[in-house]
């Protein structure tokens, strides 16, 4: 109880500040006249335009989610259903674990140089690519867990009935692993949406940069706009709060899955 209270308290305080006028925040008053002015400023004022950043974040998150879902589901199915030599499995899973654990800062140097080289710096493309290396391992682990638990017999029966391997993947395995696919999709989306370092180093203007970069620049440049800062951080957290509300159980499982599956 205390623990969940301590977890919620910052959200509550910042959440109420987001609806306060500057004078009410500064005067630290309990009663205040609620206002949406902070949200309006953050969303629609031209030089910050979180609406534009939101579109960028959404496109980037959906794209890297889609790529890692397609690659991850196929790859996990292949690793889980067919007898690969230990070397292949160990290489793919071990390498992904390594990528997942290395500090992301390690990749920023080469990514920056490559983005400049291919002249795609400050576009969606390098950010999507960078986010894919974060989301792909998560999707792989979740999907492999689900495919490992699906009984082989179902698919074997389907194949005896004349369904080929591709068909049994698309019509039997994938639908049965639906909850896993859902959890993987949500986590991939959130990890991309929340990511900061790659978005910071691979973009420079509102044309391609994401919400977290906007929030960070905003709170550092205008360190005194407390109400707007509160509103911005609440807005940035909305997807996470929505997904926690609708899919808590699958998310809880997915969050620690990488822990025991090496």
């Amino acid at each position, binding site marked *: 109880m205390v623990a969940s209270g301590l977890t919620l308290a910052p959200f509550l305080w910042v959440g109420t500040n987001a609806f306060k006028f500057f004078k009410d925040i500064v005067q630290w008053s309990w009663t205040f006249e609620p206002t949406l002015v902070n949200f309006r400023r953050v969303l629609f004022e031209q030089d910050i335009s979180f609406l534009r950043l939101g579109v960028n974040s959404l496109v980037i998150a959906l794209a890297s989610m889609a790529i890692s879902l397609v690659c991850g589901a196929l790859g996990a199915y292949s690793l889980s259903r067919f007898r*690969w030599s230990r070397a292949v499995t160990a290489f793919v899973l*071990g390498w992904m674990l390594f990528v997942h654990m*290395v500090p992301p800062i390690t990749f920023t140097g080469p990514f920056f140089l490559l983005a400049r080289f291919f002249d795609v710096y400050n576009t969606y493309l390098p950010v999507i690519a960078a986010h894919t290396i974060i989301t792909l391992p998560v999707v792989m682990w979740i999907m492999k867990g689900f495919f490992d638990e699906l009984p082989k017999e179902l698919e074997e029966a389907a194949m005896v009935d004349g369904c080929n391997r591709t068909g049994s993947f698309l019509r039997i395995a994938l639908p049965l692993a639906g909850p896993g696919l859902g959890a993987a999709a949500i986590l991939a989306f959130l990890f991309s949406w*929340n990511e900061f370092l790659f978005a910071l180093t691979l973009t420079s203007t509102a044309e391609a940069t994401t*919400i977290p970069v906007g929030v960070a620049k905003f709170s550092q440049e205008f360190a005194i706009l407390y109400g707007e800062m509160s509103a911005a951080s609440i807005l940035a957290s909305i997807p996470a709060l929505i997904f926690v509300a609708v899919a808590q159980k699958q998310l809880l499982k997915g969050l620690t899955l990488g822990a025991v599956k090496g």
Partner: protein
Amino acid sequence: MEKRGVGIGLPGLGGALDRTFRYWALLPVFVVLLLLTAYPLVQLVGMSLSDYTFGGGSIVAHYSGLRNLELMGEDTVFRAAVRNTLVFVVGVVLVEFVLGFVVALLASGLPRGGGLFKTVLVIPLLVPPIAIGTMWRLMYQSEFGVINALLREFRLPTPNWLGDPAIALGSVMIVDVWHWTAFMFLILLAGLESLPAEPFEAARVDGASAWQAFRALTLPLMRPIILVALMLRTVFAFKVFDEVFLLTTGGPGTSTEVVSMYIYKVIFRTMELGYGSFLSVVAALLTSVFVLGYLWTLRRERIAA
């Protein structure tokens, strides 16, 4: 076993494609991993042996051998960053472990593991770290922040949380504990819930106290999970960047400079791409030592590898 068929399967796909399904299903992952992780890392090693100059919109590399190694040897800021990172990692992992374990023990007594309660605890793991940094920056604010306001109510001293070099690192660590304790909690709770019930019933029948049962049963049975939780959190804590960037950007002075933050500054503020890459290689090597240790622990403790 594999019986090729037509009809129910996708009619357009030929048998050859179907027989090689296992290969092309794994291919995309392979390609992505090679292009987006292996190749950049190879390039990183090359970059770490170079010196870069920026001129007229183009970036020119010059081979500089082990010059960057010498630079690192003389770099007192990097040394401070390593020291701060060690303090940070050891500190937050231990505190998060103890807190997470206590909460997990309490929660495992609740019916259904306390569903709503668990959900609330997990929220910090899923919101953007940058939003967390912003929220805490507001709360730490000396004049109007909620923390000092509460302290003032009780007539306690109101420190300058992020501006005082003596306590700034501690303030950042508090934020990390708030952010990540739930991770420890989730892993440890899953471990507690998977423990067999019989030994505990036997212990109760034999009249063992709760503390005795905890020391003689819970701790030894949980050993593999505890090791996994500690090692994972250590590796993740080593990555810390977002909150430091937002709260202090490494300051005041070098008091909260951590490895990722410093490498970022070297590459993107002073634009020493070569030297920054060299430091990145060092960080990656340190991580791989830990990953190998982690895999070795998994194998030794016979957890699925």
